[in-house]
């Protein structure tokens, strides 16, 4: 196919030929097989161009359509998500609670110590008048007068120290913040009770022994005794020991 014939066919395709020129082109297509084939290929090429243009447009609309559909779906989800929003809020609240609990735990951990538990739970022992023998008059008087050093001296001077003597001596040592000495005194009470059929000051000695261990920064022993008391409803100090928050005991356990 010559270049001039090819141009004639293109001009014919583009509808640019008129009159004799147009007739000449039609004759060429009719009589020349190569020209007819060329014309067919040109027409097919133009169809491909139009097809590609439509495809471009459809692809553009497809993109817009799916992008819009996505936005609509998201909006529907957001709007329909009163429940979802609620659950989101619930999750937020739960997260906040967890954070607060975490913070509280950290705070609790930092402020709980043997000293703090001791301070919160120590109360001076009030000596009942009915307890003890008349021989303890001097000791009782010193104790009631809160003369702790006198209590120490009187007990130290006794030849036969009873559970009461040891217990009051232990309480005096606690008041004087001599916790190690207090521990020794309360242990004596417990030892004597093991030898006697009738225990005296057993429950008192156990409770204050636990507190003395706290005072002496010996949480392991203190917690063990407190747990024992908490497990015995008949113990005189059950309520007091149970009033100590379990988390405090846990913290003491972890810290030791």
């Amino acid at each position: 196919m010559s270049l001039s014939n090819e141009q004639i066919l293109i001009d014919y395709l583009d509808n640019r030929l008129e009159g004799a020129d147009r007739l000449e082109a039609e004759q060429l297509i009719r009589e020349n097989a190569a020209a007819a084939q060329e014309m067919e290929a040109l027409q097919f090429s133009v169809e491909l161009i139009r097809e590609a243009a439509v495809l471009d447009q459809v692809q553009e609309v497809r993109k817009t359509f799916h992008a819009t559909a996505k936005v609509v779906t998201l909006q529907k989800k957001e709007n329909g998500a009163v429940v979802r929003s609620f659950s989101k809020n619930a999750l937020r609240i739960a997260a906040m609670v967890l954070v607060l609990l975490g913070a509280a735990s950290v705070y609790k951990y930092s402020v709980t110590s043997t000293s703090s538990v001791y301070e919160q739970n120590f109360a001076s022992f009030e000596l009942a008048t009915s307890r003890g023998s008349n021989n303890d008059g001097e000791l009782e008087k010193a104790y009631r007068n809160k003369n702790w050093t006198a209590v120490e001296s009187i007990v130290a001077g006794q030849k036969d120290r009873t559970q009461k003597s040891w217990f009051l001596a232990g309480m005096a040592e606690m008041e004087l913040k001599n916790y190690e000495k207090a521990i020794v005194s309360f242990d004596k009470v417990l030892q004597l009770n093991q030898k006697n059929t009738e225990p005296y000051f057993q429950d008192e000695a156990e409770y204050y022994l636990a507190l003395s261990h706290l005072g002496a920064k010996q949480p392991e022993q203190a917690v063990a005794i407190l747990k024992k008391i908490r497990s015995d409803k008949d113990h005189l100090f059950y309520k007091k020991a149970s009033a100590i928050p379990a988390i405090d005991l846990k913290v003491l356990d972890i810290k030791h």
Partner: protein
Amino acid sequence: MKAGEFYSDEELVAALRQNDNLNKAILFIYQNYSEKLSSFLINYGASEQEAQDVFQETVVAFTDIVKKDSYRLEAKIGTFLTAVAKNIWFNEVKKKERSAFREKQFEKGRDQVEADVSHFINEREMKQQMRNLVYKLDEPCRKILMLFYYENLSMKEIVQHLPYENEQVVRNKKSKCLQNLTGMVKSHPLMANLANKKNQ
């Protein structure tokens, strides 16, 4: 692009014939038939992506059929689109040599409209495969050919759109681009097969 435009079947066909409203008309087809037809194709074993691709090809084919005045409104557009989509998918299945079971299933459900559109689809198969030749042209060529043959702009108007000196330069450029494309078309194996069939 305005969403929510409504077209009756007749109005939609008219809109597809006019390039001015083509985007709106195509969007209307997507809005009204995309989901239904995609579900339909998925039932026939297409993946979601395949269903979307077949639907896109269906819209291109339908637009082409309408532009050529080959659509006669004897069937509703929805029915016609379904038939076109089903034929395109069937050809895809055949090409990919999917299970014979699916083909049998397809053949069982084939109705008259589908049989009618199948000849459009066979012709389109070749176009679809050769369409890529247009994208092998460089960007200026593709643009000039699309502006002239699809947008129907005159040489004078094209000069205003593209950086060419005058109408004659545009005309020469356009002829050269078309010749390039036609050269690729003639040497494409599918075109050679077609020529051989005609000669036999």
